[in-house]
């Protein structure tokens, strides 16, 4: 059941990225170009997602045990520290350079575009490097 839920969640997420056009880095860069030619669409993607996910989170959290798993498994980390700011800033810089973040980057592998595949490989190297020096959360 858990496996099927994981696969279907991924598929639905991927289709959401296509319909909202967030799979296209140009669309994301349009949002980040706040002081130029601004495309507010990404804000509406976030609002659409939060309208659905936020009530779901709060309903599910009240249960003793989740439906599809044995126990809850999410971060209880509440600390706002230098690592959070530094990491977010590094991510923001990479995001602004190309317009790809992890979700759309991985989804766009489907289009067999050598540019996004190059980006994804570098991103996984980045994941690995942080793990290697034990600097992750």
């Amino acid at each position, binding site marked *: 059941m858990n*496996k099927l839920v*994981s696969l279907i*969640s*991924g*598929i*639905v*997420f*991927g*289709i959401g*990225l296509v*319909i*909202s056009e967030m799979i296209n880095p140009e669309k994301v860069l*349009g949002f*980040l170009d*706040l002081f130029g030619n*601004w*495309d*507010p*669409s990404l804000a509406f*993607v976030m609002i659409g*997602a939060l309208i659905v*996910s*936020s009530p*779901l989170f709060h309903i599910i*959290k009240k249960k003793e045990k989740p*439906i*599809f*798993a*044995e*126990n809850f*498994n*999410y*971060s209880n980390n509440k600390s*706002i520290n230098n690592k959070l*700011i530094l*990491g*977010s800033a*590094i*991510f923001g*810089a*990479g*995001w*602004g*350079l*190309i317009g790809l*973040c*992890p979700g759309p980057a*991985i989804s766009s592998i*489907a289009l067999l*575009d050598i*540019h996004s595949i190059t*980006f994804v490989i*570098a*991103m996984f*190297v*980045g*994941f*690995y490097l*942080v793990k290697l020096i034990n*600097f992750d959360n």
Partner: protein
Amino acid sequence: MNIVNFTPVTATLGGILIGLAVGVLFNGRLVGISGIAANALTEKNNRFDNILFLLGLVIGPILYSLFTKNEINITISNSFILLIFAGLLVGIGTRISGGCTSGHGISGCGRFSLRSIVATITFMIVGILTVLIKNFL
């Protein structure tokens, strides 16, 4: 600021799908693409579930194309050096801060986690500044 290419309806629709995917997967499991992708690479726990989710992300756009007969277009014209550099930044940054646009932006903000709200504001500001600087160069 000029508003261009704004697609509020498809953005909200796509966002709702993303919210559903995140909300369902939250049912006991860690949510956030950078976390899922990094764990698929480096952790044995839940590895198969994580890989299935990532596979779903790639299958989503393919299913969308098959059923709607719509072509998905993305435009990336950056040099490979820049793609590798930005991919590394995204991989490293998201692991140091423990989340990306989905993990902090949708899951974290949806749970009203202050840590995630701070992260989201940080990567948004740096992303916007990066595009601003890029446009000047």
